[in-house]
Structure formats: structure tokens, C-alpha cells
């Protein structure tokens, strides 16, 4: 079946199997491999992307369900080579080690700041419960998001 949507501002259209997950569509059909797969039960959040501006787990959505949607992946966060404050925050505060959970964590962080521009530490932890990290112990991820919140982290992403 045919699926047409916009990813990082670029219109995409492909013939896909109905069972194809959005995450596999993004990674294998479109070739944007920054979005990762870390589990098969929707727990880990490594696959988090923005769908019509909302953070969603792309492993739990069929590509067909994203028909006509605006998707933003980690590759679409920076604008004209300028990192988004969330990306800067993760760099400044050592919010990543192996980096595998990071794209999903950043996209979830984006969704959190859209809903709550000045979250407390508790609100950050609560807001990121759906994203697992095995490396950092989360402390610097919280610090990264706090930094982003103080440095324009609610700045909207990429191309409209």
C-alpha cells in the first residue's frame, strides 16, 4: 500500500507492506538511521520521534497510520547546521555515553519541554519515564534538559 508523509520537511511517498512499523519505514525505507530500536515491547523509547509535533514511539505506530503526518526525527532537529538547545544541552552536560538511547531521549525531551517549558527535576524524571538509558544513571540527562530549558529549549524544530 502507498504511504505519503513528510519527514524533516521533505515529502516522502513509498509503497510499503501494511505491517511495516513507522520506525522501520524511517530507518530502512527512508534511510534515516538516527532513530533506534532498543526493544520489541514499546518500553525503551529509543524510537521516539515527533509526529505532528508530539513525541511518540515510532515502534508502536504503523507507517500507514502516519499517512499525511509531519514527522521530525533527530536528523531534523538542528536548523541550518545550528544545533537545537536540547542537543547542545546533552553535549554540555554529558547527557550521553554510548549514545544509543540519545536520539529518542532528546525527542522525548523536546515533547516534555513543549508541554512544560520549565519543569522541575521531578517533572523531568516523570516526563522521561518512557525512555530507558542503561549508561548514564539519568542524572546528566536531567541536567541536560534543565540546561536546554534555560537556553531556549522550547524553540520549535526544523522546517515547518
Amino acid at each position, binding site marked *: 500500500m502507498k504511504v505519503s508523509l513528510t519527514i524533516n520537511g521533505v515529502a516522502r511517498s513509498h509503497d510499503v507492506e501494511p505491517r511495516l512499523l513507522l520506525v522501520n519505514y524511517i530507518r530502512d525505507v527512508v534511510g534515516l538511521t538516527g532513530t533506534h530500536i*532498543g526493544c520489541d515491547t514499546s518500553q525503551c523509547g529509543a524510537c521516539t520521534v515527533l509526529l505532528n509535533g508530539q513525541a511518540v514511539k515510532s515502534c508502536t505506530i504503523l507507517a500507514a497510520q502516519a499517512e499525511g503526518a509531519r514527522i521530525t526525527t533527530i536528523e531534523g532537529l538542528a536548523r541550518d547546521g545550528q544545533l537545537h538547545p536540547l542537543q547542545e544541552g546533552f553535549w554540555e552536560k554529558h547527557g550521553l555515553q554510548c549514545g544509543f538511547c540519545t536520539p529518542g531521549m532528546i525527542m522525548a525531551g523536546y515533547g516534555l519541554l513543549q508541554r512544560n517549558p520549565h519543569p522541575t527535576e521531578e517533572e523531568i524524571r516523570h516526563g522521561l519515564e518512557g525512555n530507558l538509558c542503561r*549508561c548514564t544513571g539519568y542524572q546528566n540527562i536531567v541536567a541536560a534538559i534543565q540546561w536546554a530549558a534555560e537556553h531556549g529549549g522550547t524553540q520549535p524544530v526544523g522546517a515547518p
Partner: protein
Amino acid sequence: MAIAESPTETKLVGQSVKRKEDPRLITGGGQYLDDIKLPNTAHVAILHSPHAHARIRSIDTSAARALPGVIDVITGADLKDSVNPLPCAMPAGGVENHLVPHRVLAVDKVRFTGDNVAAVVAESPYIARDALDLIVVDYEVLPAVVDQEKAMADGAPQLHDEAPGNICMHWTAGDAEGTDAAIKGAEVVVRQRFRNQRLIPTPMETRGAMARYDAGTGETTIWMTSQAPHVHKILLAAFVLGIPEHKLRCIAPEVGGGFGAKIFLYADMAIVAVLAKRTGRPVKYVETRSENYVVTTHGRDHIQDVELSATRDGRITGLRVRCMANLGAYLSTIAPGVVATLFGRMVSGPYKIPNIFSEIYGVYTNTAMVDAYRGAGRPEATYLIERMVDLLAAELKMDPAEVRRKNFIQPQDFPYTPPKLGMLPYDSGEYAKTLDVALQKSGYAELRRRQEEARAQGRLVGIGLASYVEICGVAPSAWIQKEGWGGPLYESAQVRVLATGKVIATTGTSPHGQGHETTFAQIVADQFGIGMDDVEVVHGDSAGAPFGLGTYGSRSLAVGGSALVKASQKVREKIMAIGAHLLEVAPEDVEYTGGAVSVKGTPGRQKTFGEIAMAAWLGTSLPPGMEGQLEATSVFDPPDCTFPFGTHICEVEIDRETGRPTITRYVAVDDVGPVINPMIVDGQVHGGIAQGIGQALYEGAVYDDNGQLLSGSMTDYTVPKTTDVPRFDLDRTVTPSPVNPLGSKGAGETGTIVSTPTVVGAVMDALSPLGIRHIDMPLTAQTIWKAMQAAQKH
């Protein structure tokens, strides 16, 4: 020679420099295994056994082969004459080990539910996965045994003809007679059985491998989610596939965490190599998370019976440990050695115990293989000794901090070797110092006062305290070979200065989150007095690099970083000789500071690093007899391991209604020697503590009696999430190690090693008014609640 003694300034070492790895990782640019896309790639799915123990009567792959899009299907019969079993590279040293064959694809028997039975290669991963369902296997199901104590008992199902009684090895160390006497004649004896539960490492990236065979050159390339690609290369080439060593290239791309699970040799690495040659196409395998849980190695899984004897005033006189270690269905690459050397020889921890006896049984069961997982033996050792010290303190009604202090190895005792335990000497330590810093930083007296107040209100508040010493920076090659490891454990480094003054530093370590591209660049840049941006750290590819042993055992800085220092210093000598020659003075008349070689006492007469690099490349104005180019390779074989140490303290409150434990304060004081990048070391400690808390409160791999993994997904195997761990308050003392030029001890595993008993101790302290002595981990709300109910019935 320590860095501080070298003539180059120290500008970057010691600074929290932002990571060079991050720009690509925060923009989705990192290339992990599944991100590498080669044209015409075929995809592999592997059929695992549905039974924990069964004979294979027959396998019919015809329907699978007939599925459109399936290219080939192989079984054990196809490989048994051309592919050797996966070797165990570290049997337990000094004893007989009953090694057992571990076939890449099972031939006659399957022994756990992750055992590989067949492999399909197809046009897409979906077709390959669909084809698995079409493979018909006729099994004769056999009874299974999952518990190591049950596996050792008479009448237990036997897994291997080669291992009667399911025993791999029976290993001892220490003084049995002296320890028995000490315990027999003791004023106080504490006895306890502990279960150090099985854990699933769960790096966020699962494992996989991709292979390509070039028929023209005869070279096979394997990309692998590996912590040690050179080691995998030699094991595959020399032991499994029979490929000439110079015709196999192994590459670790970006690797998404490992924690030990990616050290080992796995069947899928061989399977993709075989299929790449058979099909003439690149072949890729990526395990699902479910497969990762069932197939990839697990950690821990000890049953320990421990006795500790002491005087009535709290001085420990004896320690006897009898441990049954579950090794799983086969031997993973270093499993027996980890249990014997890294656990068995470390049971006495930071204490001066005069009589120690350590006895271990390594046991086969119908479960996933168990091998090193962050801490690798030291968490199992630290947990038992710290819990025993707490039980002793409770028995004697003494403060657990003071019992520890009383028994610590003293600063003047170093280098210290626990008596008769066969361990290397502990290099350096000031254990009481970290204890004091931790007590002060946590406000221990105030915590105890708060606890009294809380108890008066009927609240369950506990304080946990644990001290540790651990062994890392592995290892002197001669010693580790005696301990059973079949190779070296030195590390290699190659430093090449290019014509334009840029430096390529190639390391044999293999980072997967530890930030070596940053910290090693800091070290090398300071060696030459140049900027971070002028140094490129290269790792992970066996082609064009000297053999490296990889990253695990908190060795990369202590051993790999030290090799880089040595290689840099060799190059520096040449730089100085060339500089002297260009300046027309004798070599002893120059010094190297601030990135230039200058004539001593004559400001302004100098040649910069860049000028010398260019001269070396041009090759025409070199000292007589000197060859052009600036490059050196060094191998650092450490004279000893390193022994970080510290004390952690935490406060926990338990909800009386639900049993739920909440950590309300966590203080960590660690001594890892001088720190190259404090931000990166702090990150390692945070992550390590979180994993140790995972073991204490949340994680546990569970099999049913039929050998089915019940905790088979992240729903049931609950690694900590953001709200499951508190903030960690970190501090450090610095006691350099005398065993390497950096003085570094290694920091990657310390957090995991000590946080588990710290948190368990706190929970047990909280429950002590209810008369509860010990509960096995994980201390979930349900487990605590049940224990509270049971206690209240009495």
C-alpha cells in the same frame, strides 16, 4: 614515569572537556551496526530451541527453503565438519575444568532456549523471520534443571557427557585448615546464605553481526557489536572458522553499550561469516530484544554460603565462602575464570582477614550462559563481605562504620596481599579516608539522628553503608595466563604524527560509551603540547592496527591510556632529537615545553611541533642514521592490576503500606586515582550506581522449572527508569596507583560493585526493628511487603 614528571604542560588532563563523540551522536549520525547499510545485503534469522533440554531427532528445512525470498537455510549438520565449536578462552586456573563443546548450530542436543538450531538467510529480515516458522524440528524433550544446587544433586538431568554431575570445575583458594580452626574457636560466628541473583546486562543496543566476503581477495570482514574486535578476530580465525588470521577483518562500529555482554564470542558472528561466503552477498543479523534476553549472556547467579568469625570486639578472624556459580548451558568465553579469579580471590574485600578459604563449584544448567557483567565477580564478592560485616555489626550491636574501620587494611600495609588467596598485591589504598569523607559528606551522625526520630514516628528509615576494594585495570599477561586466560592482557597503542602536525592515536581499546576519543586525545595532546582538535583517536578496526585486547574490566585508561603515554614518549624522544639537530645543539641541551623544542636557557630558539613534524616527513634534515616519519608503537603490560576503593552511604525509607523502598539520599566517595576527565568519570559512576541499584531493588532474571525465561521482556525484567533512581552526590579522594604512568585505577565498574550492598544494607537497616535479618534481592516492594507481613505474624 608519571605525567606530572614529563616536561610538557598539563593543560587538558584533569579537565572536564566536552566529548568529541557527541556531535555525531546527538544528531543521529552515529553508525551503529544496524545503521550500516551495504548494497545487496541479505538478512539472517536464527531459530532458537523452544525447549531448555532436548535431543534433536530431525530437522526439515524444505518448507522454509521454498518460501519466496529465502536464499538458504543451514543447520548444525551443514557446519559440523567445517566450523569448530566456540572455545572457552579462560577455564578456571590451576584446576581441572570439564570443558564442553558448544556448537555454533546445535547438532544432536539443545541445552537452553537460546541454543541455535538453524539459520535462514533471505532477501528481507521479515521473510527470514517468517521462514523460521516453517522449519520443522522433531525434538525429544528431556527434563531440565535451572538451579545450580539442584543440578549438582544426585539424579539431576545431565547436560553434557563431558561434565559428570554438571560440574565444570571445583576450585579453591586460601587456607582451609586455618579458616576452619578460626571459625571453630571463634567468640562470634555469623552464617548466612546469599543468592546473588541472575541479571540480564541489557545494553540499549542489542547484539548483531554483519559479514562480507570478497571472493577476489579472499578476505572476510565482520562488523560486530563488540567490546573486543581483535579478540573476536583471533578466536574466529584460529579456533572456529579456520580462516587465515590475515584474511579476517573485524570491526566494531559505534557500539551501544556492552557492560560485558559484548565481550564474548557468539555463534551469530560465525554464522554471518559462513553465510556471506555461501551466498556471495553481505549478510546481516541483528537480534531482537527478546532474543537478547534469551540468548545473550547473563550475569551473576551465585548461591553463596558464608561464615565469618570474629572477636567480640569486632575484629574479623576468619572467612569461609562456599559458592555454587551457575555457568549456564555451555561455557561463555571467560566464565570460569571470572568466577575463580575475579570473585574467588576477592572475597575478603578491603579487610585484613587472617584466615580465608574460598571454594567454588562452577555448574552447568539449562539456562543462558553466565559470564562477566559490569563488575564481573567483584559485585558478587563485595556483596557477600559487606552483608556479612553488617550482620556482624548487628550481632555485636556495633556501628557498621566502626566495624569496617576496625578491620580495614591500613595504608602502611600496601602493597597488600590477602593471605594465601592467590591474589595480586593491592597496589595502594587509604580506605579509612574514603570512609571518613563519606561519613562527613552524608552527615552520618545527623542521618542516624533523623533515623531515630523517624523510628519514633513508626517510620521505616534505614541507613546503608558499604566499603569496597576491587580489582581492575586487567591485567599482567603472565599472571592472567596462569589464571587460565589463553592470551595476553597488555594493551597496544600507536602514535603517528602526520606531515602537517596532526596526530593519529590508535588504541587497542574498544569504547562503547566511555569517551576514549576524548580522554585519550586529552592525554596525547598534552604529551605533545598541541590542541585536542589536532589529535584523532582511532579504535575498533583490526585492520591497520596493532592487536588490542578491548574494553572491559575497567582497563582502558590504566592499560590502554598508559600504552598511549609510552608510545607518545617514544615519539617525543625522536622529536627532541630532530629538534636538537635542526637547532644545531646537542640533544641534552634542549627541552620540550609548550608544544616546541627549545634550547635550554635561550628563549626564542625553538622548533615547533609542526615544524618538526614537517621535517620528519621531508626526511632530508634528520640526525644521521635516523629514519623519517614520526611514529611509535608501544605495548603496556601492567606489572599489577589496579585496585580502586571507596565507601558509599545511602538513606532509604520504606512505605509501611506498600513495602516500596525509596532512596532519599545517596553519597558516593571513590578513589580511582588521578582523573583525566572528571565529567566522564562522574558519568561512569552515575551509570554504575544505577545498575547496582537495579540489582538491589528491581532486576532479576527468572526461569521456570522447564527452563523457560519468564522475565523475557522489558515488561518483566525491569531495568531502572528515571524515577527509579535518585540523585547521586559524588566525591573523590586521589591515591595514585604506582603500577602505571598515569597513576590511574579505572572507574567503570566501581559504582555497580558497591551500590548494591549499600542499598540492600539500607533496606535491611530500615527493616531491622521488625526483626528481619536478611532478604534476597531484588528487594522489590512486593518482596519487602511479604517479608514485613511474615515478620508481623511472629
